[in-house]
């Protein structure tokens, strides 16, 4: 079991560029969550999927952030027109069922210059 895989581990973008972050959940897990971690705000929920369907995106900034889960083996978080305030560690987690504990990937550190 490789755990939750996130790629890339580090990404540097210029202001206004697009960033796409990838997450491969643990095989057999039906729920996928995205969180953002910053020094100032701590760990914040962004969105989650259950059986590939979007369930709750209440934490997503509405205008530039989007997430998809096209199949059970990966999810993407896309940030358009990145801004310096988007700089953070983006964490993906999966759980075998929504009732169960979440297992986190190592995160993608996004730096927007």
């Amino acid at each position, binding site marked *: 079991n490789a755990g*939750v895989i996130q790629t890339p581990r580090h990404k540097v973008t210029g202001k206004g560029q697009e960033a796409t972050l990838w997450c491969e959940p643990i095989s057999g897990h039906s*729920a996928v969550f995205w*969180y953002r971690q910053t020094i100032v705000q701590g*760990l914040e929920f962004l969105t989650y999927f259950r059986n590939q369907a979007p*369930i709750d995106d209440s*934490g997503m900034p509405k205008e530039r952030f989007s997430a998809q889960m096209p199949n059970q083996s990966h999810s993407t978080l896309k940030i358009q027109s990145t801004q310096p305030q988007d700089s953070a560690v983006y964490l993906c987690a999966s759980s075998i069922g929504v*009732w169960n*504990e979440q297992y986190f990937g*190592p995160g993608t550190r996004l730096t927007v210059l």
Partner: protein
Amino acid sequence: AQSVTQPDARVTVSEGASLQLRCKYSYFGTPYLFWYVQYPRQGLQLLLKYYPGDPVVQGVNGFEAEFSKSNSSFHLRKASVHWSDWAVYFCAVSIGTGNYKYVFGAGTRLKVIA
């Protein structure tokens, strides 16, 4: 809305000493509670979880936590701290019904000294 408070941003303990990290939650129902540990430049690793049942739960590496509904608390304990426990610890709550996202506390940074 539910919330989690970890009142101690930093805790320093001597190796071999006992440890308690505090967590207070705010939620009107019975929550699902979790403790995670984060080592530098790594993701979160699950230490232990509480689902309604026995209030004392055992976790990995000698950690345990006790749920108290009357005090709205879920404190983490360890009898004897090892230098490898030097990390950041997060308490999290999940409603567990209808929406399973976590709400995290701000974290407690544990430093272990010789």
